[in-house]
């Protein structure tokens, strides 16, 4: 029987490293996805995702289960990513390079070359449009789109109300829609 996140957290609080490893294995890709969506750079995203779990390990004894483990871990990840983004204003082209890498991997299975060109343009423009959003707007988009979290959970992670989450999400989607309407 698979242990719940909370069971693993409690074992981890008693010093069981294997339980912490299990938590990392459950969430490392999801955390990486959110952070990559915010930072647009693979190396930075990997660094921040690993730092997220390190910080979680350091603070795990103070985690009392008031919220779910994934809400807690996303909060650490988003805060670190936003800090990182504010500290280092990176070249926005880096995200396009990241997206190109994914496209190359996907081209192998693409059948229609015209559709492929269209997809490439769409993805590049999506990357550019996302990069123009503020970190807070990016965060709501990533948490909602990738994880399908509720507005309440996103509010807990970002430390804001459900109303704020709703308005940020609406604004961010409107921006993306305006920039991409020609390709959709």
């Amino acid at each position: 029987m698979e242990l719940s996140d909370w069971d693993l957290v409690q074992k981890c609080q008693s010093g069981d490293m294997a339980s912490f490893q299990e938590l990392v294995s459950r969430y490392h890709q999801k955390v990486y996805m959110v952070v990559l969506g915010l930072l647009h750079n693979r190396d930075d995203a990997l660094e921040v995702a690993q730092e997220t779990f390190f910080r979680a390990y350091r603070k795990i004894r103070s985690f009392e289960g008031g919220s779910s483990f994934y809400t807690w871990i996303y909060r650490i990840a988003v805060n670190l990513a936003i800090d990182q983004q504010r500290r280092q204003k990176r070249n926005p082209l880096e995200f396009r390079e990241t997206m190109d890498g994914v496209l190359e991997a996907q081209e192998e299975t693409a059948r229609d070359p015209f559709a492929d060109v269209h997809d490439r343009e769409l993805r590049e423009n999506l990357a550019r449009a996302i990069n123009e959003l503020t970190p807070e707007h990016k965060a709501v988009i990533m948490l909602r789109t990738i994880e399908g979290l509720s507005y309440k959970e996103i509010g807990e992670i970002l430390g804001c109300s459900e109303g704020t989450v709703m308005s940020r999400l609406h604004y961010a989607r409107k921006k993306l829609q305006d920039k991409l309407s020609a390709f959709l």
Partner: protein
Amino acid sequence: MRDCESIRESIGRWLDGELDTAESESIRAHLASCEECRKAQQQLESIDQILKTTLLAEAQQIEFLPFWRGVQVRIAQKTPWHEQALEGLRATFTLSRAAWLVPAGIAVVLAILSLDSYIPGLREGRNSFASVESIDAYGRNVALLRENESKTTVIWLYEDQEEENATADEPAKSAPAF
């Protein structure tokens, strides 16, 4: 009937499942009859879908073991030595792992309590809380037991059994031989 602008404001929340049943029904009914709003809905769904598949494809390239090793290196490098030592102690003395301490503790206490049975004379001289003083007064044996803490004195009169025995033996020795 709601207008298109109001509907488009709510499409995102509808897709996210954040509207109540009545509102959801109102959106669904409008979309069934309005092509423009349906297009807006499809655009939002496409954006979400592309974003998700793109990032998912990236995340799937992240293998667990190298990632975990990176976390372990951070834990080893960034944790101060005293925290690491404390962590080691905690890991050793967790409730489940420290169960051996209970019988071990009992064994140690029992061993200390029974030390004097193995080492004779260990406790001699330690009874300083009381003293016994023997006085030979008026031909009687008197002993004073003084207990220092409660300032109690017990006067103990006793007969010297050896002397008595010796006295008892004497007449036999001096008895005339018949």
